[in-house]
């Protein structure tokens, strides 16, 4: 009984502590590929790489500094995404700004 309880406590502690981690700020600039559920895929302007990020309850979508609905995030529009995460593969969105298309060189 005691051994099983201790094992349960240890497992709970390991799972709890493992989820604590530092985050870094990332800026992703590009065009929306798709928004599927809470996952937003953006193709970066600089290298064509597609980055997948998660919308959270606190994520904001704005245009001209005004909040807009997430349904505005249609494929092909230009966005600037500020996100936080441990790596570029694990990003939670802080804000998505819908912006004019960059000038072509």
């Amino acid at each position: 009984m005691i051994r099983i309880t201790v094992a349960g406590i240890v497992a709970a502690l390991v799972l709890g502590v493992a989820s604590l981690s530092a985050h870094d700020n990332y800026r992703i600039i590009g065009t929306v590929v798709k928004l599927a559920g809470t996952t937003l895929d953006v193709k970066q302007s600089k290298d064509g790489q597609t980055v997948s990020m998660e919308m959270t309850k606190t994520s904001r979508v704005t245009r001209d500094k005004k909040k807009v609905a997430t349904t505005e995030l249609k494929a092909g529009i230009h966005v600037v995404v500020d996100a936080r995460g441990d790596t570029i593969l694990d990003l939670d969105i802080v804000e998505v700004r819908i912006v004019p298309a960059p000038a072509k060189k």
Partner: protein
Amino acid sequence: MTSPTQAPAPAPPSLSMLVRTTAIALIIAGVILVTIVLPAEYGVDPTGAGRVLGLTAIASPAVVPVEAPGPADAALAPTPNGPLGIYAAAFKFDAFEIELAPYEYVEYKYRLEKDATMLYSWHATGALKHDLHGERAAGAGDGPAEQSFDKADRRQASGTLTAPFAGIHGWYWENPGAQPITIRLTSAGYYTSAVEIRSDRTRHTRTLRTIETLHKGDGK
């Protein structure tokens, strides 16, 4: 003659015991989730335990100063002598140019000791979001980890900076528009290293020039 006695095999736990211990483990996991994980990871602190334990600060971490690589030469802290600040080595200088793509930002910072001085001029081909600031080095006294000295939209600036604390000091420049913008910075000072941080979080250490390079080839 006695036969060896065998210890009886332990009885397997009963179903009710398994249910009880599983429930206990789940309750403990739930308590840890509510009191530790949610406050630390998401800033959600329904019980107030996260604030008491200082865990909510993890969800919104303080700015951690980015340390430039250590200087190859000695730290350049001035020794005051009346109106003079005397340094143990000569100043360095630097010329930096970068084109910021639409909506990108860059940080460019020099490592300065407390009271060390630099002078600078920069200009850009378009208006930028701009923040001249310092990030305190670890162990460089009490005070905020980061301090802004000039935060405004600008296209150019010239001035001098005397570091209020040891750390990295320099600029955050953000291109707010859809056109590329080129920035050119020239500086000289008693700094020991420079670091460039791009919006994709890559960091590049810059090589600074010594005043000896000014005199090469002058024939004297």
